[in-house]
Structure formats: C-alpha cells, structure tokens
C-alpha cells in the first residue's frame, strides 16, 4: 500500500514528532510512506472563514500533490475531513476538478481509522505506565467516524490504563480561527473540558488533532496544572515519553 502522508500544517510547524509517529505507525502496518513536498495546509482557515476562492486554489495544490497514491493519510480528523467531505463541494462548477477531488476524497483517511479499519492493525508495540484519558476531537468523531479505533490500539499499550472522562464528545473550544476571534467563549469551553480531564484522574490527555491539543495544553500550562498533553500517535509509536505539548525540551 503506497501511502502519501498528509502532514497537516500544525504538525509540520509545531510538532513534527506527530508526523514522524504517523510515519512509523504506517510503516509498522506495512505501508510504504512518501511525503509530497508541495503540500502546505488543507485550506480550512480559508474555507471556514468564507474565503472559498482561496480554499479552492489550495485544494487544487493538494489534489495535484496526492495523485497516484493508494491512500492519503493524516494525523488529524479535521484536515482529513476537509479533504474527504469539503473538497468535492468546492468544485461544483468544474466537472474535471470535481472528479479529481472526489477521487482524492475516496482515498483520504484519518490515521487511526486507516490503521484499524483499512490496514487491520490490531496492536502496537509500545509501553506507557499510567492513567490516560482520550478527548474525541469533533471532526474526527463526527465527520470521520473515529471513536473505537484509537481506543482499540491504546488497549494494546502495555502499562496503560484508559479512563474515560465525562463529556468526552464535547468540543474543547479550539475551532480553528474561532479560538482567537472569540477567546472568551473559547476559554470558557476549554476550562469545561479541563474540568472533565481533571475529574477523570488521568495524568495524561490524548487526542487525535493537534489543534485541540495545542488549545488544551496552552490553557493547562497557563493554569499551571500537572496534566501532560500528547497526540495519540506519539504514544502509540513509543514516543510518549518525549516532552509533552507545552513542556520544555529536557536537553
């Protein structure tokens, strides 16, 4: 299976270890992985701000970059949801591009659902001692059907205990540009999420989307709370002991 990795702009810029973790997991599942260098972002900031013209141009670059791969996989339900559900609609008036967009949509997958549902991955070889809780990111959950797959893989991690928090399906308040346009609402929402995380008793919170995780980690750090935040892919790839999001590099 030839997989093109959709890095996602947040992993590319803020946390490359998430993309490296994704590469390792995909290779462990038997895929060959390539990373097209002409990719930048899925275009959601433009699309969700009403700028469909720019979103369409960005989408063309993505479609071109990922032609020829058997599958296009990214460590984010949000970005992959955009490729799968939003790109075709952007080309309603251009039949040739629309069919290319639909072709990409069919091949686009969120990382964990691809590993479990397509590659039939049953387990990973990783260890993590302690209690973790898992935040269901909205787009992954509702657009891409990601719920059981990361939990299934987490169950195979030695030493790990998954405790479900209340309100795991509630939005963390990130919402892309929402969090900087309406910071008061966003902060109120992330505080609600953090209350659930704390009540779960877990020392680590996991998720499948860096946007949510940067938001949760940024607020946790500001409030000085002792909870680690990492991307599920990092933990599954055995990279869970690296400095968590918002933690200082130990070197």
């Amino acid at each position, binding site marked *: 299976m030839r997989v093109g990795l959709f890095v996602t702009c947040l992993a590319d810029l803020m946390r490359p270890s998430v993309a490296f973790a994704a590469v390792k997991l995909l290779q462990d599942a038997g895929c060959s992985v390539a990373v097209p260098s002409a990719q930048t972002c899925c275009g959601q*900031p433009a699309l969700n701000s009403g700028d469909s013209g720019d979103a369409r141009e960005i989408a063309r670059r993505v479609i071109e970059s990922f032609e020829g791969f058997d599958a296009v996989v990214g460590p984010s339900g949000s970005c992959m949801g955009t490729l799968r559900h939003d790109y075709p609609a952007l080309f309603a008036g251009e039949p040739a591009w629309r069919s290319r967009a639909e072709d990409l949509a069919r091949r686009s997958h969120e990382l964990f659902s691809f590993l479990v549902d397509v590659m039939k991955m049953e387990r990973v070889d990783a260890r993590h001692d302690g209690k973790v809780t898992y935040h269901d990111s*909205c787009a992954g959950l509702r657009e891409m059907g990601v719920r059981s797959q990361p939990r299934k893989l987490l169950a195979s991690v030695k030493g790990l205990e998954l405790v479900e928090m209340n309100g795991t399906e509630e939005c963390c308040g990130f919402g892309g540009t929402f969090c900087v346009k309406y910071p008061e609402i966003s902060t109120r929402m992330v505080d609600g999420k953090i209350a659930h995380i704390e009540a779960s008793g877990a020392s680590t919170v996991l998720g499948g989307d860096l946007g949510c995780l940067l938001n949760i980690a940024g607020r946790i750090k500001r409030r000085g709370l002792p909870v680690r935040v990492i991307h599920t892919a990092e933990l599954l790839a055995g990279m869970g002991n690296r400095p968590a999001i918002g933690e200082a590099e130990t070197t």
Partner: protein
Amino acid sequence: MQAAGSTFTKRVSIAIHDKRLQAALAHASGGFVHKRAQQVAALPEFEALRERARDVKEHVLTNLDGYLERYEEQVTRQGGQVHWAATAEDARRIILEICRKADAKTVTKGKSMVSEEIGLNQALEAAGYEVVETDLGEYIIQLAKEPPSHIIVPAVHKTRQQVGDLFDLHHRPLGYTKHLTEVGEMVDEARQVLREHYFRADVGITGGNFLVAETGSSIIVTNEGNGDLTQTLARVHIVTSGIERVVPTLDDAVTFLRLLARSATGQEITSYVTLSTGPRRDDDLDGPQEYHVVLVDNGRSKMLGGPFREMLRCIRCGACLNHCPVYSSIGGHAYGWVYPGPMGSVLTPLINGLSAAYDLPNACTLNGRCQTVCPVKIPLPGLLRELRRQQFESGLTPAPIRLALRTWAALARRPRLYHLTMRIGVALLSLFGRRRGALAWLPLAGGWTDSRDLPAAQGRTFQQAWSARKGARP
C-alpha cells in the same frame, strides 16, 4: 426584541461573568442532554423517524404552495380564516386589526416563538391592550421585561431565587404576600394569578407547532395546559405560525410529535397535545367564536429556493441549543435576538440581514454536535459556513481578518515560499519558547495568549527534518 448589550462580544463577556446565569446554564443543559439520550436509547426506530421526518419536510417544501392552499381550504371549510403576512409588520397589523374588530381589551398568549419574532407583545401593548403570557416561563420573563433566552424554556436563565423575587414584586399588589422559595409553590401561585386572566381574556393567541393540511387543524404541545385555556376560553383564537409548519396529514404530524418531545425536553410526549380545528361548532360545549390563523412568511419563502432551504425543516425543538457548547457557555441573550444557538445563528442573519448579525455564524467551532441531534437532520454547520461565505463575498468580513487570510493563503498556494517562510517563523517560535516549553505572550496573538500559553514549536519543520533524514538515508 433586542437583548441588553450593544455588541455581541460585550454581551458574551457579561454572560460569561454572570455567576447566576452560569449556574442556571450548567444545571439546565446537562439535564436536557441526559434525558434526550435516554429517550433515544429507548427507541430503536429513532433514527428511522428522523429519516422519515426529513423526507416529509422535504416533500412539503417542494410542494409548499399546494399544501398551504389545501390547509387554507380546510380551515375555511371549518369556519376559520387564514391571513397571509408577508412581513413581521403585516403580521402585527393583521393581528391588531382582529383585536380591534373583536373590541378586545385583554389578550392572553400561549408560548409562540413566531410572536416573539414579529415583536407582537410590544405592538399589542403600544396599542393599549393588556397582554398576559400564560406559559410559566414566558410569564416569568414578561414580568422581568426580558426576551426569551431559549426557544423551549424561555426563562432557563433565571434561578429559583430570582423568580421568587419577581413574584414578590408583581404578586404582592394582588394579595399574595408570602415569599416563595419552592418551585411547587411558585407554580401554584402563578396558576392562581393566571386563571383570572383566562376568564377575562377577549383574545387568546397561540403558536402552532404543526398545521395539518388534510384537516385544517393546528397543533400545539405544552406541559402546563395553558395553551388549552388560552385558546378555549377567549372569544377569539388567533394562531400565529410560520408558513413552513404545515404537514400533509395527521399521521405525519404524529411522526413529528414523536420526535419533538424527545428531542426538546427528553419526554416521550408532552403533557398536552392539543388540536384545534375551526371555531366552536353548534354542538360544542366550549371554544372560541372566531378562529384565525396568521401565516407568517417574514423571509421564509426567500429561503425556499436558495442554499438555506434545509433550515425550513426546523421544528423548533431546541436540541441544537441544548447540545451547543457555545450556547451552554453564553446563554441565549448574548445572541441578541429571539432565536439563539445554532438554529438562531442561521435564522437571524437570514431574517434580519447578513450585516445585522455578523458574529452569529462566526461564533461557532463547527463541532457538528447540533447536526447529529437535529431531529430533521439540518446540516447546521454547513449552513453557518455558507453564511460566512456570503459575508466574505459581500465584503462584511472585517478588513484585518481578510488581510491576514489573503496573506496566509497567498503563501499556502506557493509551497516553496511557504516552507521557506515557515522555517524561519518556526525557528523563532522555538528559540523564544524552548526554555519554558511555551510562550506566554506573542505580538498580535492576544486572542490566543491572553488566556493560554502558546506551546513552543519543536524547532525544525517536519518537511525540513524529513528531507534531512531522506538525505542522510536515501
């Protein structure tokens, strides 16, 4: 009716710092979500009902003119009268005229969001009528002189203590001197006060949850029975309803009734489901002498042929409000008009104009929970995004946001330039943030850093690290 506070952001700030409101919201939303989930789990065919309800609504919208004509014929045959109101102003004028002809002095009202939409109470009061809301929640906010903050539970933002204080103020002159602290006592006292009004009322105005084309009936659902007394005891009954609320048959209405109570309050069915068909007939024991239906368009027919058509499927259950994390954070008044939450954020700009409610479509994370609980499967996030697109195209998006977007997009469309620029930016972010692991402040990023740290970048971009690794191990 406009809620307090001049701008959305200001109203949000007030709401978030209002401890009583926050307590009321936390109490309410958890309960509704839980009760709905229990009802859905207990009804295996719930999903099939949603599909059927969506299909019925789509069928009605495709044939709306035909069903409305059929409905009017049936209402007329039953001795009632249908009035067509193209605008809110038309609706107010028609209703005032009916009240004038009836030589009315007192008007009782059952809960009706359409009457809120058209600003009916203010118009009636300005014309000198005594107006009494009979739904307990509506009665409370009428005493408080506030608009509803929820389409199903209009006084959800009020605590028990606040209601007790309101009753002290307004019921004392009527001889009710005891300060009340228990919900049961308050309900009893309100019932006693309201009962007098039902008997004195000349005109009773209700909403219409569904209008049945085959019989000419209007259906209301209530939990207090107040709607029945409002429409049965007055001489004149006026139903106000949106044109989209017509359903073909009584069987279809039952499909919606099964969905409505479960979605709204987590009940299998409301305590009262009342059908009214025309005025009192010769052998009826009671009922009004006149029966009027005011069908309100107010922007609805314009939605019919465009990208917002699906919004006309809405049955006003409020599930999208109850499951919305933004609504749960700020309550209904912050939205600034009568319809709050996801459905209100779509409807308000469509009825009042794109520029009148710029923030509403934007103040949403597009988390999609509303769509998953909507009983008629309205793609609310998609509609909100379409509104953002129309705002952007018509130049309503603020200039600084446009500039930032266009600059970023110009880079994102040029991968080589993008990667080069980002390498530099990421290196700086990493340099300044590395020691603490995060940045507490960043120029022009106050929206993020006022309340959150910005986690530091790891150092190199992935693309940079990946090509270095490939170079090392071809």
